[in-house]
């Protein structure tokens, strides 16, 4: 599904290297969790995979379903089934949520050779998915993420994921800012999409999320590299001991 080899990425502006030889292999149907200290480069990895400007890849490669992911435009990556749930979803005043969701759903469907959904069909679909995520339908009339609470923003990210039907999703701290009930709802939303073809990369600081979304593999990302990998028990260990061991190593 996704094969990252020795990835080095720096900030374009100042040349500071953030990813320093990151290697990660994710197979279809697998859920991988990445944990690691603040500033380690977790969001940078998500941004680089999604194609955000402002980074220079100096070494390494990323292959997604056999294609060179880094050669694709941002929207082409989304059409190919990559989804990034943002750590900090962007507020876009003036763009109505419903209009945004319909545009992204239909553009993605068109790129995948699927017929466009009519306004009515789309509205039904969006309302149904929103209801599953306990999103108040009035939020669909508001501007994208504008004035949404932290938890509402995260739920809106999961709503977008459900509508876009991705093959590989990166969830960047989608659990941060969620109360216990919301966490369960969001986790159910993710689990509903789990199958033997779809893969997830879950970035989190809290073992708690992994009680709901059971990972196949857990990795520690510190100072731009995967410094340790293991099973779910690694998350428990990190919860107890923190990252002291890795910060010293870094």
């Amino acid at each position, binding site marked *: 599904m996704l094969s990252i080899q020795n990835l080095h990425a720096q900030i374009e502006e100042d040349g500071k290297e953030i990813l320093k030889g990151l290697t990660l292999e994710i197979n279809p149907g697998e859920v991988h969790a990445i944990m690691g200290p603040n500033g380690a480069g977790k969001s940078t990895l998500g941004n680089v995979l999604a*194609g955000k400007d402002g980074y220079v890849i100096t070494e390494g490669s990323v292959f997604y379903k056999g294609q060179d992911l880094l050669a694709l435009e941002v*929207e082409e990556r989304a059409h190919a089934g990559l989804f990034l749930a943002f750590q900090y979803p*962007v507020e*876009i005043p003036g763009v109505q949520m419903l209009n945004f969701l319909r545009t992204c759903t239909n553009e993605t469907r068109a790129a995948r050779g699927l017929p466009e959904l009519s306004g009515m069909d789309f509205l039904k679909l969006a309302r149904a998915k929103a209801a599953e995520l306990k999103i108040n339908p009035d939020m669909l009339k508001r501007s994208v993420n504008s004035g949404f609470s932290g938890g509402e923003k995260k739920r809106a990210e999961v709503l977008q994921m459900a509508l876009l039907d991705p093959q590989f999703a990166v969830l960047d701290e989608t659990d941060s800012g969620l109360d216990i009930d919301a966490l369960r709802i969001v986790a159910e939303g993710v689990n509903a999409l789990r199958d033997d073809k779809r893969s997830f990369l879950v970035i989190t600081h809290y073992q708690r999320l992994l009680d709901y979304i059971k990972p196949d593999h857990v990795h520690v990302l510190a100072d731009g590299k995967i410094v340790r990998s293991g099973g779910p028990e690694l998350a428990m260990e990190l919860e107890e001991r923190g990252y002291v061991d890795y910060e010293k190593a870094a």
Partner: protein
Amino acid sequence: MSQTLASLRQSGAESFAALGWPNRRVEAYKYSDFTSLTQADLGQTVAQPLAELSDQDGLRCYKPGEAPQALVDKIGSLVPLDDPLAAYSTANLDDVLIIEVAAKSKLTGPIVLDHRRLAGQAAFARYLVVVGRGAEAELIERYASNGQGASSPVIEVFVEEGAHLRHLRSQTEALDATHLGWTAARLERDASYSHFALNQGAGISRHNIRVDLAGAGSHLDLYGLHLLDGQQRCDSHTRINHNAPNTTSNEVYKSVVGGSGNSIFQGKIYVAKDSQKIEGNQMSRGLLLGPRARIHNKPELEIYADDVICSHGSTVGALDEAAIFYLRARGIPAAIAHKMMVEAFVQDVLDEVGDCAEVTAHWQAVISSYLTSVFADQDGQA
């Protein structure tokens, strides 16, 4: 031509002879010089028919010769002849249409003043609109053309006590045309006036707006859009005079500029001595679509009273890259993402345009065709 018009014309000519075309040394024309206008830019003077209005209950139109003297006396009373463009238009006026909305009436349809100037012509439309006490009306004023030459219309608007007027003006002239427009309004006690100005056309344009809040309790809403591309230069100059107590004004101007376009907004809020309990809010925001686009926003406050709440804000920026990345990451192609962002930028002005389906459709069509061409040009350059 009536005696009144002949003498008004004469005053305009004398004033224009003294002032000439303004250059940048004239404060009100700081960012736009008009001295380089050529005869081709101005066109040949041809008598232009004024808009024809169909009869409606509560609406009356007069030629100056037939109108009551009280109405005739209002012609030229709001537009200051010490402004060179007002003087130029007045010096060339040919005819005036007087439009009166009877007191207390509520018009069923809008008053439509449609203008289509032909290439090579110079047009000097001139209107006097009086909305009688307690009346309600909507006025649509549109300027289009198919080539060079200039339109220099002047409209004077009186909103009498307790009356309400919505005035929607659109300027979509040919890109090699010149547009020199004047809108002057006077609001009596408890009157309200909303003016919307859509500026998308003409190579060189200037729209002067002057509103006198002359009666206590009167309210003004002033909204403007500049949608520019290529070499266009568009200059809006607004002056709001709070000449009476308890008057309020709310002004929002937004500019979107692509290519080497140049958008200019100068907006003054003036509060006279003894005009207490005033609220005046002004916001001008600019969106630059490329490295050669320019925006000059100059808000000014001139306040001589003390119980006053006035604010002005001005911002100029580029499209929000983080938002565009977000949209693209959701599968929306870059070109569509750009359009969505510009539409979002102008959305609040469009929301205010409001109820009239015909007007909303016209504004949307102008915005949409602007977006198609401005981003097509940009892709071409990339």
